[in-house]
């Protein structure tokens, strides 16, 4: 721990001290305050989803299921899916770190439409309240995928209430995406051309393109599902001439790009942290940047790989398989470029860097197992089993959540003006890596052996691997509570943060931390290219 000389920060005034009334927070249009409001809300939902995950792993300790009724188990994993996907993973980085950092990185005073930004938060909160209501009055037992005719006719859960909640949350995503795209296009600081922008902005731009163009299709799908469930109209009901596969097509047209909404901001955060802690320009800036854009485009063409055994035509399955392999190439390029950045760098192992390195490792495993389920022949055996569960948890939890924590630690000094405790941060990163692998690696083996997903009870020969996985889950739970503890601690007792604790490039580090309400005294002029790290003679590294 550094010498505890409490330098009184000369930045007494900042956006945090610009009004203490509840009204100044709840009616703020300052992108930084809205980012903090969002940070609180998604942390709340992260722990609801996390509690459901704990119950799932608790249930699977014994083959016949610890929780008595399968009905309850179905509702628990549906809650885990719905809350985690729409109320944590999709908003996480864009609305918290993105909202805070995008105007700062652009050298702008605020987003293009500040009032729309506040509306987006209120839509998120209303949606959150409706989903919490629907969970507490009984929840849904259809899984977060809501396949018809189970969700439209045979389920006795609160499908319509949950569908309304997701419908409203969708508009919150569209508002955020629209705000980011227009801001990145129109509010760049003078001198900041597209190739002088940090990669984080490019990946948030790609994420917003997906948010804005995919979510409307989900909105219409949910309207049709609501009609089908209330009026039994037959759009998805084969007895009346409808086609249940139409629902799956419309659902996955949104939901596959949505998983890229979850991972692309993670790419952006890691592309900021690796150069900063390797003191070296990013390797292949143009390739990484255009990889993000190509992921945003191709991700709309691959949704059919979720339906290889669903009864769609085998020829359309082949088209979707080749396109799914195509979308994997940009992610592979990004991983090699991060490694290229570390090559011949001056690597420091602060907490954000450890989370980012964990991200690269776990995301690579997740990405590679994606190749298993993109190959048609292998997918017939592996789909709908724990192999797929492990695949998407490696990408979403191993990738996205690690990147979210990396970004949170990286920009924590800028957001709160306080430094987090370094040793605790590194410890947290290590425990997450260990706990995560112990939880989800056994599930690959379970998946190959054929254990189906969403099963309340399972044959006894899968028990040992499930117990191993549940043990890992307890470590993971501790690993997630740790940052909550020491980051909250740092709010009060953390060391005051200087303007640029990591010596990183980027406009957000050229203003005070925490920044003023209008971010910059006068709009900065951008001259040199991004990540212009001179090889450090003296390393401005805190002792």
């Amino acid at each position, binding site marked *: 721990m550094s010498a505890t000389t409490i330098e009184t920060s000369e930045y007494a005034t900042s956006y945090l001290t610009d009004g203490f009334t509840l009204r100044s927070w709840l009616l703020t249009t300052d992108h930084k305050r809205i980012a903090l409001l969002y940070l609180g809300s998604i942390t709340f939902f992260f722990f609801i989803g996390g509690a459901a995950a704990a119950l799932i792993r608790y249930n699977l300790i014994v083959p016949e299921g610890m929780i008595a009724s399968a009905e309850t188990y*179905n509702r628990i994993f549906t809650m885990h899916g719905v809350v985690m996907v729409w109320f944590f993973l999709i908003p996480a980085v864009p609305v918290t770190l993105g909202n805070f950092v995008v105007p700062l990185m652009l050298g702008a005073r605020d987003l293009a439409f500040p009032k729309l930004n506040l509306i987006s938060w209120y839509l998120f909160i209303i949606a959150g309240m409706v989903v919490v209501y629907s969970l507490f009055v009984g929840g849904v037992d259809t899984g977060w995928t809501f*396949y018809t005719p189970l969700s439209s006719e045979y389920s006795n859960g609160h499908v319509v209430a949950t569908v309304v909640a997701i419908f409203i949350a969708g508009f919150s995503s569209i508002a955020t995406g629209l705000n980011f795209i227009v801001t990145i296009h129109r509010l760049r600081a003078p001198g900041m051309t597209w190739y002088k922008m940090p990669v984080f902005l490019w990946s948030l731009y790609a994420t917003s393109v997906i948010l804005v163009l995919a979510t409307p299709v989900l909105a219409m799908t949910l309207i049709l599902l609501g009609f089908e469930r209330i009026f039994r109209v037959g759009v998805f009901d084969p007895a009346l001439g409808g086609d249940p596969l139409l629902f799956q097509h419309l659902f996955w047209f949104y939901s596959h790009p949505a998983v890229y909404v979850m991972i692309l901001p993670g790419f952006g955060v890691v592309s900021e942290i690796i150069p900063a802690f390797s003191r070296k320009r990013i390797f*292949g800036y143009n390739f990484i940047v255009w990889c993000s854009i190509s992921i945003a485009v191709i991700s709309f063409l691959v949704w059919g790989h979720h339906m290889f055994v669903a009864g769609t035509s085998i020829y359309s399955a082949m088209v979707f398989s080749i396109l799914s392999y195509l979308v*994997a*190439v940009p992610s*592979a390029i990004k991983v090699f470029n991060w490694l290229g950045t570390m090559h011949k760098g*001056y690597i420091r192992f602060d907490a954000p860097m450890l989370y980012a390195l964990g991200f690269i490792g776990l995301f690579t495993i997740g990405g590679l197992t994606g190749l298993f389920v993109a190959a*048609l022949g292998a997918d017939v055996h592996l789909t709908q089993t724990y192999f797929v569960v492990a695949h998407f948890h490696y990408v979403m939890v191993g990738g996205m959540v690690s990147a979210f924590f990396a970004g949170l630690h990286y920009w924590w000094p800028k957001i709160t003006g306080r430094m987090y405790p370094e040793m605790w941060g590194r410890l947290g990163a290590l425990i997450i890596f260990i706990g995560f692998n112990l939880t989800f690696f056994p599930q690959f083996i379970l998946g190959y052996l054929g254990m*189906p997903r969403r*099963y309340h009870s399972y044959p006894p020969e899968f028990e040992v691997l499930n117990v191993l996985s549940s043990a890992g889950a307890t470590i993971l739970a501790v690993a997630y509570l740790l940052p909550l503890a020491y980051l909250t601690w740092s709010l009060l007792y953390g060391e005051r943060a200087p303007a640029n604790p990591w010596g990183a490039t980027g406009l957000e580090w050229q203003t005070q931390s925490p920044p003023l309400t209008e971010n910059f005294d006068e709009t900065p002029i951008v001259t040199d290219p991004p990540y212009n790290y001179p090889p450090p003679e003296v390393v401005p590294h805190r002792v």
Partner: protein
Amino acid sequence: MRLWLTQATTSAPEVDYLILALLLISCAVLALVFGLMLLYMVKYRAGSGVDRGALANKTWRLETGWTVATLVAFFGLFVWGADLYLRLFQPPPDAMKIYVIGKQWMWKVEHSGGQSEINALHLPIGRPIELVMTSEDVIHDFSVPAFRIKHDVLPGRYEMLWFQAVTPGTYHLFCTQLCGTGHAQMTGEIVAMTAPEYQKWLEQQGASETLAAAGKTLFMRNGCSGCHGVGGNQAGSAVRAPALAGLYGSAVALADGTVVTADDRYIRDCILLPATQRVAGYQPVMPSFAGQISEDDLLKIIAYIKSLATVRPS
């Protein structure tokens, strides 16, 4: 705890080779990524004085190199997977048909000899077997991990699945598409037996009449014979209705000008939605039996009409 799944069908080893190849490629790439990462973490850590030398700024040669390599590898994997997929879902013509009906939380199996089973499927090894599957309510999924095969079972449609069992034994059957409360109980046993054992099992299943015979009684009871005649050849029927003898598999000209082959789906649609399949030159007088005939009775009637096809005096 065993880490290896028996390969019980002819296609199982092929799926396993593909998964093994994917595993090897993944391990190679992982070794490269983790290796490079650890190497750089040690060699280029902040304190190490190792010479960094000139930084390569022309990166696109390296980038296009590994991108092309990845594309070629991926295309190879795609072709391998697609070829296997096509073979998995195109049955040989001489496959033995077994009918499977998924119902909320149980599997009903109908053998063409009339034997029916609940949550169990006895089948002979050594010959291709084709499962013709449908569901009576929600979407289920007939999945046998040991056979490396699964397929969703949709209501209102026939879905098909084929395999050729190799090693006798008892294997798990799972429903792998969430279908409500009893989804986890909707499991069963697939018993693969040698041909003689299978014959013995068929006999001791009791002389319950074959599907076709059961279909004949249903054909009478539901009044089909009233119009289509007792043997389906219009004998002694007051109303003019298409002859059913020799119908199965033949081409039928419909009233709206299209020509369809009379297969399972066509006959099923005629029974449930007769007006949509009106035969050219006949009045649409046939009533719809939708909702009156259950799925397994429907299979019996279709089996009976299929048996009329061979009775034709060729």
